[in-house]
């Protein structure tokens, strides 16, 4: 939290120190408590089967020999394997059985995940996991080949499909003795990743381009961001993403290049250009709220006293959000932004009310959410300020000589 300490009163410094200490304590407690027993969870999901762990190591992935109570079927295997989603690590379990037609998937169980509930709801509602049922274990399980991604949860689709694929193929080769005939996984680098790079390049250019067509150029970027980052991939940056990085939730580049492109694009603009390009051009939620503001034409102002407290408001809300994230080790639990829900139209409980409130607010007050509630914009702008302070500290500008009559 980049706050100029010189401007703070002693009691404010004390509160800030306490708040930061509590964040550290929550982080440590969360890391200690987050040790779920996947072995027991997997057994609980298959109560009618005799589940015997085959491998001796205690870490994941774990392979199990499964047998029916009534008739022993030695050709059944269970695998619990880790993966990586957009929000953080995930754990899936698969149960495959050898039949006369070949070895088929019987169960896919999501034991753990860090995705936004909106994403998981969307995957479930669009029957994403049903695609795996009864598939042969020798299938490729590749997005775009034999598995379809769910638009609006594309990155989560890739994460779950890769984890399931790894688990099934491990069980097939290690336990069922099936030779690997499937296509080897390659980079998940697709059209959406290329388009995101192009979008960032265009946004970086827009930060400097001033010309006759500036207005149209910016509208073009905004429309592209809305479609690509909003509706198609639903990969807006949230407080959960920022907290996830702190907790070490960094997905493999090969599997989630989009995450890397997004983060490099977002932080690169702050570090290299000293500008917050994400909020200005890429954030699809800002595009929607700006559009609403343009449609209404209403430009209500916030009371100046409240505007001055906006900083404290966002700091407090993001602190509570971070505490929840660190304690639960689940980024979605403290991520109060309605971004993911906006573009998937899936949400849980009170999330259904935050989105319309933010939209109605934007209808009357320009940049309503961005100015008063958005933690991502706040921290990115703080990053820009910190960069500027560092630059001024390292390379102090020479004071301009006083003007004299001879200059004129």
């Amino acid at each position, binding site marked *: 939290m980049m706050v100029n300490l010189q401007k703070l009163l002693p009691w404010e410094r004390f509160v800030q120190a306490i708040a930061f200490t509590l964040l550290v304590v929550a982080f440590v407690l969360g890391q200690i408590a*987050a040790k*779920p027993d996947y072995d027991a969870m997997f057994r609980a999901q298959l109560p009618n089967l005799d589940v015997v762990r085959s491998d001796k190591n205690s870490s994941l992935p774990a392979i199990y020999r499964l047998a029916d109570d009534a008739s022993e079927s030695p050709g059944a295997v269970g695998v619990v394997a880790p993966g990586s989603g957009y929000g953080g690590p995930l754990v899936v379990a698969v149960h495959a059985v050898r039949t006369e037609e070949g070895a088929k998937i019987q169960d896919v169980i999501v034991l753990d995940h860090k995705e936004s509930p909106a994403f998981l709801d969307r995957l479930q509602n669009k029957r994403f996991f049903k695609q795996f049922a009864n598939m042969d274990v020798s299938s490729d399980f590749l997005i775009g080949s034999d598995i379809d991604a769910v638009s609006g949860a594309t990155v989560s689709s890739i994460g779950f499909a890769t984890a399931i694929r790894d688990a099934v193929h491990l069980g097939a080769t290690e336990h069922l003795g099936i030779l690997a005939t499937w296509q080897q996984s390659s980079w998940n680098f697709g059209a959406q990743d290329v388009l995101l790079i192009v979008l960032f390049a265009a946004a970086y250019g827009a930060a400097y381009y001033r010309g006759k067509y500036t207005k149209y150029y910016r509208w073009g970027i905004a429309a592209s961001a809305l479609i690509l980052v909003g509706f198609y991939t639903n990969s807006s940056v949230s407080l959960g993403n920022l907290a996830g990085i702190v907790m070490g939730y960094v997905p493999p580049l090969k599997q989630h290049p989009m995450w890397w492109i997004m983060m490099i694009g977002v932080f690169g603009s702050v570090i290299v250009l000293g500008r917050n390009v994400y909020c200005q051009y890429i954030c699809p939620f800002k595009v929607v709220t700006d559009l609403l503001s343009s449609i209404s034409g209403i430009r*209500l102002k916030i009371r100046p006293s409240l505007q001055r407290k906006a900083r404290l408001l966002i700091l407090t809300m993001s602190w509570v959000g971070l505490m*929840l994230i660190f304690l639960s080790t689940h980024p979605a639990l403290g991520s*109060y932004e309605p971004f993911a829900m906006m573009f998937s139209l899936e949400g849980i409980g009170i999330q259904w009310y935050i989105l319309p*409130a933010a939209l109605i*607010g934007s209808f009357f007050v320009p940049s309503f959410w961005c100015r008063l*509630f958005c933690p991502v914009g706040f921290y990115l702008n703080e990053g820009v300020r910190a960069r500027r302070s560092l630059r001024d500290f390292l390379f102090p500008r020479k004071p301009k000589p006083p003007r004299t009559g001879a200059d004129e």
Partner: protein
Amino acid sequence: MARKKKKLQKPWQYQLSFALVGLTGLLVIGFFVQSSKTVREAEPIHIAVERVKAD
């Protein structure tokens, strides 16, 4: 050229914007309460278990 005079906002307009901020703030607090209940559960990690059975 004379400067364009800034249009002052009426009190009810400030009240409306304040009400919108207050409402959204309350909803965010509600979200935190909802999330904290999930955190307090015995197995907070175990958020979703989906079992897909072959038809």
